[in-house]
C-alpha cells in the first residue's frame, strides 16, 4: 500500500472535472487485461465484487456465507485525456448471468470495444448480445495472436454477423498505439452515430 500511495500518478490531476468510461469486453483470455494495461497511466487496478448465485451484488461485508457467493473481478485503468477529462477502461468478464454487474458497468458508458480471437469467434457472440440488450454501441477489434488464422474482413464480418456500420479493426493488445487506434475507431463510430438523426 505504501508504494501505491507514494506514487505521483495515484490521484487524478487537480484540474480534471469529468470522467468517462469505455468497456473492454470479450471472452476468457482474449486480451482484455493486456489492452487495459497497455493504455493505462496507472498500474491497472482490480476490483472484486461478491455476487450471490442469483447475480445480485453483496453490498455489505458480513453475513453472507462465502460459499453462496461468487467473486467477479474487473480490471481497470485510467488515461488522462485532457486537463479536464479522464477516461477509465474497464475490462469486463463476459458472463451472462451477472446481470446486476453488467447493468452497473454499462450505465453511463460511452461504448464498448469487443475483443475477439479468430480461433474462436463464436465465443464473442454472448458478449455482443449482452451489449445489444443494453443498447450499448460497440466496435469489434480482432486481437491478432501470433498463431491465429488471418481472414479477410468480409469473412470476419459474416462470421460475427456484424451490422455494416459496426467498425471492425485488428489490433495487438500489447501495443499501446495499436490499442489506442482500436479505441479511436470506436469513438469515431460513436461520433458518427451521434450525427445521424435518431
Amino acid at each position: 500500500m505504501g508504494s501505491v500511495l507514494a506514487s505521483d500518478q495515484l490521484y487524478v490531476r487537480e484540474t480534471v472535472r469529468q470522467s468517462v468510461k469505455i468497456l473492454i469486453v470479450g471472452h476468457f483470455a482474449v486480451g482484455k487485461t493486456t489492452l487495459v494495461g497497455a493504455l493505462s497511466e496507472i498500474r491497472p487496478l482490480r476490483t472484486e465484487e461478491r455476487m450471490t448465485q442469483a447475480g445480485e451484488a453483496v453490498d455489505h461485508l458480513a453475513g453472507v456465507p462465502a460459499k453462496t457467493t461468487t467473486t467477479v473481478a474487473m480490471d481497470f485503468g485510467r488515461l488522462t485525456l485532457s486537463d479536464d477529462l479522464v477516461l477509465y477502461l474497464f475490462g469486463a468478464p463476459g458472463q451472462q448471468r451477472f446481470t446486476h454487474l453488467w447493468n452497473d458497468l454499462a450505465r453511463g458508458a460511452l461504448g464498448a470495444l469487443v475483443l475477439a480471437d479468430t480461433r474462436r469467434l463464436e465465443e464473442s457472440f454472448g458478449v455482443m448480445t449482452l451489449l445489444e440488450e443494453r443498447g450499448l454501441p460497440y466496435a469489434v477489434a480482432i486481437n491478432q495472436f501470433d498463431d491465429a488464422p488471418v481472414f479477410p474482413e468480409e469473412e470476419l464480418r459474416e462470421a460475427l454477423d456484424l451490422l455494416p456500420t459496426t467498425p471492425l479493426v485488428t489490433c495487438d493488445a500489447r501495443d499501446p498505439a495499436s490499442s489506442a487506434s482500436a479505441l479511436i475507431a470506436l469513438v469515431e463510430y460513436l461520433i458518427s452515430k451521434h450525427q445521424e438523426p435518431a
Partner: protein
Amino acid sequence: MTRRRPERALVRPHVVTGGRAHPTRNIFDLVTLVSATRTRATGLSPEKRRVMELCQGGALSVAEVAAHLALPASVTKVLLSDLVDSGHIVTRASAADRDQTEDQLLREVLNGLRARL
C-alpha cells in the same frame, strides 16, 4: 477483502454501513470522482477512516477507492454515500451534469486518444 468479521448465523445486511436500509449509492457510478473535504475523521468506523485517509490525497474514482482499499465496489459506494451525507466527501460533477454536448465530449475523448498515437 481486507478483513472478515466472524460468520453470523443469519444474514445481517449493512453491518458496515450502520444499518441504513436504502443507501443513496445509486448517485455513484464506478467512475464518479470523489475527494475528501476535511481531515478530521473522528467518530467514523474503521472502514470510513480508511476511505478518508485515501481520499485526502486528491481525487479518485469510486472504482479506484474500491481497488486501493480492496473493498467490493458496492460496499465502497455505500461507505462513500454515507460520507457524502456527513459532509466528509464531495463528488466532482460527472460528465452527465456538464454544460457540454455529448458530441463535444466525444470529440474531446477522440482528441485525447489521438494525442497518444
